[in-house]
């Protein structure tokens, strides 16, 4: 049960202002989700042959340089890394999966938040404003961002249990609502599709479902269309990929959703009040997405 926001820039001229435009959207959704907050920001694509990983360690004194060195020598790659509070972005050659494993094997408290070429995910427990401040969200640049404020329903209030969830390269998903068939679907995806789940959260199952479909060759748009049939319950999803952005509501569509579009951007929020500070919102096309209709921009949609 939560607030969700997303911002997808259609013109590159606003790229430098992504964080500044996005931060107030996230903070405005505090009432809907005071337990934790998280964002996925897509920016600064790694160069050809490189992957970008965001990892989290709860200890502020954790020695990231030692980690980078150990993984570098293990895998025979060069790792460039920079800190952002409890999170670190590591850019390296090699295969994403091998890197993720090597990082998580190094210390049991390390968690990989995202992997890909463009995505970075930052999430923490606490009020959205504190989380945004901690990671310097308002100064971030990029092409699109997806954010979430969480009112935990059944699974734990932890950093790992915060949204967005990422289960595939450059893919992230946030969710407002409550799925009713996620346990059996989780079992299926884990047993038959080899997906490793990190939490008990229903949203992680939705994210895994979408990334599994996309790995099997479906586009983001198609994968979300598939989910209308396979995911039961109440949901509004916002999904980000390397260069795509999509929104879907379940067929009953009880959970709120507002989309706004101008020549410059597409913005999504659970409630209109999260959109009020966007430039040109007064003249934007503002509408409520239809139930069971996939809306997508960019990507392989």
């Amino acid at each position, binding site marked *: *049960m939560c607030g969700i926001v997303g911002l997808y820039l259609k013109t590159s001229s606003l790229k430098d202002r992504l964080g500044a435009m996005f931060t107030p959207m996230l903070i405005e959704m505090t*009432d809907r*989700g*005071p337990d934790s907050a998280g964002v996925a920001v897509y920016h600064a694509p790694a160069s050809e042959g490189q992957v970008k990983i965001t990892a989290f360690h709860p200890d502020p004194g954790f020695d990231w340089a030692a980690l980078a060195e150990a993984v570098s020598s293990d895998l025979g790659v060069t790792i460039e890394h920079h800190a952002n509070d409890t999170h670190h972005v590591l850019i390296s050659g090699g295969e994403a999966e091998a890197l993720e494993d090597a990082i998580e094997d190094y210390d049991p408290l390390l968690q990989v938040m995202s992997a890909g070429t463009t995505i970075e995910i930052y999430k923490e427990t606490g009020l959205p404003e504190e989380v945004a401040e901690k990671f310097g969200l308002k100064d971030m640049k990029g092409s699109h961002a997806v954010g979430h404020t969480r*009112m935990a329903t059944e699974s734990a209030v932890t950093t790992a249990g915060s949204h967005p969830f990422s289960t595939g390269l450059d893919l992230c998903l946030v969710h407002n609502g*409550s799925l009713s068939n996620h346990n059996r679907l989780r079992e299926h995806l884990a047993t038959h599709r080899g997906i490793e789940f990190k939490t008990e959260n229903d949203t992680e199952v939705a994210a895994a479902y979408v990334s599994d479909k996309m790995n099997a060759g479906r586009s983001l748009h198609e994968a979300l269309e598939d989910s209308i049939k396979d995911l039961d319950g*109440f949901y509004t999803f916002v999904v980000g990929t390397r260069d795509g952005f999509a929104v879907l509501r379940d067929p009953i569509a009880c*959970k709120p959703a507002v989309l706004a579009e101008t020549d410059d951007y597409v913005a999504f929020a659970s409630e209109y009040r999260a959109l009020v500070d966007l430039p040109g919102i007064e003249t934007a096309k503002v509408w409520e997405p239809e139930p069971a209709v996939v809306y997508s921009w960019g990507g392989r949609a």
Partner: protein
Amino acid sequence: MSDMNWSLRESHSFDRNTIAEIRRAAQTGLYRIRGFGAKRQIPTLDDLVFLGASMSRYPLEGYREKCDTSVTLGARYASKPIQLKIPITIAGMSFGSLSANAKEALGRGASEVGTSTTTGDGGMTPEERGHSTQLVYQYLPSRYGMNPDDVRKADAIEIVVGQGAKPGGGGMLLGQKITERVAEMRTLPEGIDQRSACRHPDWTGPDDLAIKILELREITKWEKPIYIKCGAARPYYDTALAVKAGADVVVMDGMQGGTAATQDVFIEHVGLPTLAAIPLAVQALKDLDMHRKVQLIVGGGIRSGADVAKALALGADAVSIGTAALIALGDNDPAFEEDYKKLGTRAGFWEDYQDGSDPAGITTQNPELAKRLDPVKAGRRLANYLRVLTLETQTLARANGKSHVHNMEPEDLAALSVEAAAMAGVPLAGTSWIPGQS
């Protein structure tokens, strides 16, 4: 049974009740709808005992040393919280499901001993407002008769998410009881089988509920406590989310909770027993540091002062009674045995609250039957019963050395069965073992 052939062996799987139900289903093609609460055997508060005081703890002197029973409900945000003299409230039951006389009697009885009554799915009648010194107004998915004037006349507002008899299900009132007045209050045609929705029409989920609560507070100038009532489905999460959504009071109704008319399959097969629900709800409050700040009212199968005391010892702030209150008014009274027999049942077994033919004149809209209930006398019986519950609760509290009923603790209890020990989180009697806890 004098002509019983002792070699006949009744099937446990297909016993007489099962066979009767299969035959009924085959004849009608519709599921069984009835009133009352769960009838099958489940673990209850009876499976707990108080330890009492002797050498290591000192009891209070019965009847002399004071044992306080007062409860304040809703001081978290409301500027006018509810003050009760006793920790026992009357649960929501609608005019429509009950006769006007029965509603009046509930109001009279509760007011006499200083506690509150609650409206139901059907709006507020002037009679019940007039006879209840403290009236909780239920805010239900159907919104029958809902209007801002009555909201402002209420002393508290109870947003109903679910009830113990049917968590996840909507209400139902069959045509026999939709008389002209009931129909008018609910804006329905007379005589139809009325269905009530299971979800609210304009919000779904705790994040949206927080906004609904804001609206109700704005309409009532932040004066009135807001209760959230849930059936015991997932009591830990439901309590935590009610608190996060901004509730002043959480009402948790276990599966024994009664109903005016619900599918039998719901009554008997959905929801957790009250015994199991209380510790989960209390744990959620404790984890949020809200125990005793957001009050917990527990309902569902509360019958005696022992039930009240045990529920409080497990951490509830108050209990609510519905079925027990109706019995106190005169429901299932053997005085009407001949009428019960004519209906194919017996005093003590009557459960067809849905069909409006209640011989005791309580769960009916038939004016002839309703006249049988004298609201003054019935109200006095309810007041007497509430006094007994209170005296029994105090007696048990004093025996455990408590000068306020809220000072009873789980540590004052032991369980008589492994099941009850596990559900209540108290040790099995004679051991220090709580199953499931290391």
